[in-house]
């Protein structure tokens, strides 16, 4: 499947879920509606698209300039040896998106990391808990509003609590 026909086919399948297509340094980028993320990715996982691997999931904070968080998904199709990047914007006021748990097994940790670092809520996630920082950490460190080298309050020892 050529690049053009692939995008054509994806657009046909996903319909209004696709808001736009872009090209960034040779990578194909699909811009999705935030409320359509889960069904769209579920459809892409199945043949004929066959994007069976969720390579990566992360987020970019554009809150200060544009008032939004951008979720970035990287998919990989083992059968066709192509990668695809998908983006979806959520408002920075109450960032939330549907969870991918149930579609891919690594989504659980990837989403916990994004929740930890950005405070994006994943609806339907069974265990949305901080992953890299600890319970009681204040704020979300990868947000642009979080200062670099901010000190965290000391947490009491377990015996003191």
């Amino acid at each position, binding site marked *: 499947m050529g690049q053009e026909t692939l995008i054509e086919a994806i657009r046909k399948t996903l319909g209004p879920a696709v808001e736009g297509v872009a090209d*960034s*340094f*040779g*990578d194909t*980028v699909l811009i999705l509606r935030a409320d359509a993320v889960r069904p769209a990715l579920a459809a892409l996982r199945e043949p004929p698209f066959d994007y*069976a*691997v*969720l*390579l*990566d999931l*992360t987020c*970019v*904070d554009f809150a200060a300039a544009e008032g939004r968080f951008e979720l*970035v998904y*990287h998919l990989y199709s*083992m059968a066709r*040896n192509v*990668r695809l*990047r998908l983006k979806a914007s959520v408002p920075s006021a109450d960032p939330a998106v549907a969870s991918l748990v149930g579609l*891919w*097994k*690594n989504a*659980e*940790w990837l989403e916990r990391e994004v929740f930890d*670092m950005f405070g994006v809520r994943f609806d339907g996630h069974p*265990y949305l*808990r*901080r*992953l*890299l*920082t*600890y*319970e*009681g950490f204040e704020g979300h*460190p*990868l947000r642009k509003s*979080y200062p*670099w080298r901010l000190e965290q309050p000391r947490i009491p020892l*377990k015996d003191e*609590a």
Partner: protein
Amino acid sequence: MEALTRIQSRARPESMLLNMGPSHPAMHGTLRIMLELDGEKILNAECEIGYLHRGFEKTCENKTWFNLLIYTDRLNYVSPLINNLGYVMTVEKMMGVAVPERAQLIRVLMSELSRVSDHLTCLAAMAMENGAFTVFLYMMKAREYLWDVIEFTTGARMTTSYIRVGGVRADLHPGWRDALGTAVRETRRVLKDVSGLLDKNSIFLGRTRGVGTISKEDALSYGWTGPCLRSTGVPYDVRKAQPYLVYDRLSFEVPVGERGDNYDRYSVRMREMEQSLRLLEQVAALIPDAAPLPAGPMIEPAEAIRRSRRERTVERIRLSPNLEGSEKDRLGGLTAAVPPVSVPSKEDTYTSMEGLISHFLFFMSGKGIRPPKGDAYFSVEGGNGEVGFYIVSDGTDRPYRLHLRAPCFHIVSALEQLVSGRLIADVIPTFGSMNMIGGELDR
């Protein structure tokens, strides 16, 4: 009151909860595995990571494109050169830099040295934790020979920062060919010995055969890559699937396993090291000997600076020994000239006004390496699997966002599933065969 973890809230009242780690000799770095036990049997497991979280991604947003390279050394600290490579190739992709042939070959050489040392470290630790201390010592010995080659050229064993945007920092050390010959010969010998010690060893087989088994489908669903995925029979290797550097011109095979158990992960790594040694020999034959520097008198740096105050220096300048290999005559074949992405030659910086200006234009804030606006993803095959960098640039001298796709993040996330229903003793070889590297996992 701290909220209960999943395992605490779901545990049966009669079962025992046990922490394995974070401070435990077999937890490579720091990882906490909470186990719900019925006797020696594991009913449920939960991993807690983040003990080595140093805010790598946040730090990178506050460092210039040039300065953040040193932080990439500290991700997978057993094969730092591959992390350097992943980062610089992503930046090069954004800036459209064409890297000279010699630098590309040197990069392949360094990648493969790192891959072998990565696999050696993983298997050495795994074997030691299963009681095979001899294997640990043999493999560490081989790793020292490999690190000699790296150390000669880069000046460091682990924190190398050698692969730079545009090429490499300096040319190979004059004695690299002999050192590499020794390293390859000694590593082959060690691999043969280790094969003899472990391949049919009933204790080792008992701990690894059929233990920690994962299916092809589960491995893909967990986003596994690298030797762990290949042990399930999926021949995915970034070097073959999306070739970079000169890998498409070299011949090597991608070994795969059948069952996806601990033994297959061991065996895939052993066979991959043989392929990497093959690659090292091929690429060494392709790298021509460095042209000797022109003969003739050289002046000391202090003398050159003194003379340059009165008139332009024409004499050749001796560089300090720690800049060996990055002489001006050599840099042309090692780094891309256009766009200006690499440190200007020191001879010019200290003796001419233009040289000094170009030095400042490289290091001053707001100047230097500045990829155009946009985002890019690029990945290379690391020791553990696909090391990917997703970088967003806003056109300034610092990345707007830099995200690392750490291969062992995905691999370790499957640990809970792999050990549930097994015995406590099975945690050790299963975890050992995953090659968890804290720096990369926790960032």
